[in-house]
């Protein structure tokens, strides 16, 4: 049902050509919500989570109404429907990120679990005392803390690529930090705070030349731009469904087929075994080896629908729209007196961090919320990056395919009101 609607929409768009923002907005029921009484919702917190189009909601409901059953085990018709949908979703994910086979995709709860899976499943057996894990100053806590835990457990060292003042990585330092002891490089493809897009492909090539594996934190990139794991040539790539129109609690980890045998299972239980005896067990083949317990089947149905939806709009069109809107937003924000933008990378996405004079980000977010504008304030799970920027917190607006110039204007107007309220009268 959801698919059919998407398909019809695709035909419609192709005849219209280009990017039909009104049609896209109409696909997202929540965007017609009003908040604080009569204010139209202006949702600019997409780096935290995105809204869901009707086709995704329909897909989840359709699973529960017509296919609800456990996957892989039972022999009845519903189990076949559930398994077909679940494994079909895996194939969709593989196609979406250019993975060579569906089996190279492991379903997880999201980016955090994906990275923890690598840290435990690969790290414990492949990293030892004195080995180095190379990260960067701009990582999200989910790509920092699992490595800290691993390093502490096995006696490995963490190294960090510094960030330049424009919000890009110091690539000269990266080349110098890479060495024979580097066993893994783990880097975000797009900063959730600054929007910076890192040159992952060339960074991977450098890491491979040193024999290090490479993990890409793609939580902010896969939802917003075409990503191809074989083109990047990375070993692991992690992302979350909920940041790309799918429900919460479903995400994926790509594992390069040639390294999968170096991973031990992360969790034990049902679904991931081949043969269980009282004292020991053997593991199922990947990817099921890494999916202990009943998975988030409805989430996988929702993720497949979200991928269909994004593909029907076109990832390149989404990227073009967001680039144009980001440029517009940066221009408009620069007009606001006393506003400081963090990060000026040329290659960037639509996550925009700023300071509004001396007004604390919490007060900014609370105040613009009254105008119906949803932004985020805080450290954005990147406390080391906040320290690098010399702030305790920032305000952040983050854009997606359904946002408009009028919404950016609403943000700017709300920020001006905030300034008037907290303005300097000392």
């Amino acid at each position: 049902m959801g698919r059919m609607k998407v398909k019809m929409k695709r035909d419609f768009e192709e005849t219209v050509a280009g990017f039909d923002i009104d049609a896209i907005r109409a696909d997202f029921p929540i965007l017609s919500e009003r908040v604080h009484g009569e204010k139209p919702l202006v949702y600019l917190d997409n780096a935290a989570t995105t809204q869901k189009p009707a086709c995704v909601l329909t897909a989840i409901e359709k699973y529960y109404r017509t296919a609800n059953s456990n996957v892989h085990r039972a022999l009845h018709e519903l189990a076949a429907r559930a398994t077909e949908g679940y494994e079909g979703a895996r194939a969709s994910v593989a196609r979406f990120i250019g993975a060579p086979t569906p089996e190279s995709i492991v379903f997880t709860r999201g980016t955090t679990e994906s990275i923890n899976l690598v840290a435990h499943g690969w790290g414990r057996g492949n990293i030892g005392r004195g080995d180095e894990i190379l990260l960067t100053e701009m990582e999200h806590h989910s790509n920092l803390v699992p490595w800290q835990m691993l390093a502490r457990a096995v006696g490995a060292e963490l190294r960090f690529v510094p960030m330049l003042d424009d919000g890009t990585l110091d690539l000269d330092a990266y080349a110098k930090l890479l060495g024979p002891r580097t066993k893994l490089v783990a880097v975000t493809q797009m900063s959730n705070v600054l929007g910076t897009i890192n040159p992952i492909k060339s960074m991977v090539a450098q890491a491979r030349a040193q024999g290090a594996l490479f993990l890409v934190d793609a939580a902010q990139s896969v939802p917003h731009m075409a990503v191809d794991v074989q083109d990047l040539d990375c070993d692991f790539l992690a992302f979350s469904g909920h940041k790309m129109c799918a429900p919460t609690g479903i995400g994926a980890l790509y594992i390069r087929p040639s390294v999968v045998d170096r991973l031990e299972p992360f969790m034990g239980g049902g679904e991931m075994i081949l043969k269980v005896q009282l004292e020991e067990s053997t593991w199922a083949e990947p990817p099921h080896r890494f999916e202990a317990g009943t998975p988030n089947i409805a989430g996988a149905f929702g993720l497949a629908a979200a991928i269909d939806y994004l593909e029907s709009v076109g990832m390149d069109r989404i990227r073009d729209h967001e680039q144009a809107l980001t440029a517009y937003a940066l221009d408009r924000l620069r007009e606001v007196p006393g506003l400081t933008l963090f990060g000026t990378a040329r290659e960037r996405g639509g996550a925009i961090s700023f300071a509004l004079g001396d007004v604390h980000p919490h007060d900014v977010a609370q105040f613009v919320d009254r105008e119906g504008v949803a932004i985020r304030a805080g450290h954005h799970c990147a406390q080391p990056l906040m320290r690098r920027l010399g702030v305790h917190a920032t305000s952040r607006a983050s854009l997606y395919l359904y946002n408009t110039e009028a919404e950016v204007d609403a943000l700017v107007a709300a920020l001006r009101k905030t300034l008037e309220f907290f303005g300097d009268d000392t």
Partner: protein
Amino acid sequence: MTPNTSIDLDDLYQDIILDHYKHPRHAAKLTPEEALVDEENPTCGDQILLTLDLEDGCVTNVRYAAHGCAISVASASMMSELLTGKPEAEARQLIQDFVAVMKGEKDLDPELGDVVALEGVKKFPLRIKCATMSWHALLHALEKRKAEGVME
């Protein structure tokens, strides 16, 4: 989907709160070394450095450096005014009461002065921590100062 129309932002940002925010009483430039406590609100990165003395069993010389939103700075300022000069036991009770008020467990004593303006914060659950952080910090500072006294 909770209708939010009855909650007015003016409850949160009353003039008296803005006044304390812009002119915090007893604020000082403190280094972490000079402070008795250095506390952070991990959800937003707000920070308070705070120190105080205990003289004849009373709280004196409260000084703090607060980096935070209007609510957290104003709350620290109002607290420092309210608790300065109070006997330790009474200060502890006032802290306990204030935290209970923020949790909605009791009403604020209307005789407490400027602090009364903070009562509106409890309508904004996400901001309650902003208001209570400095009070927790002062309690911890009190305990540290007391422990020092015992050691001497």
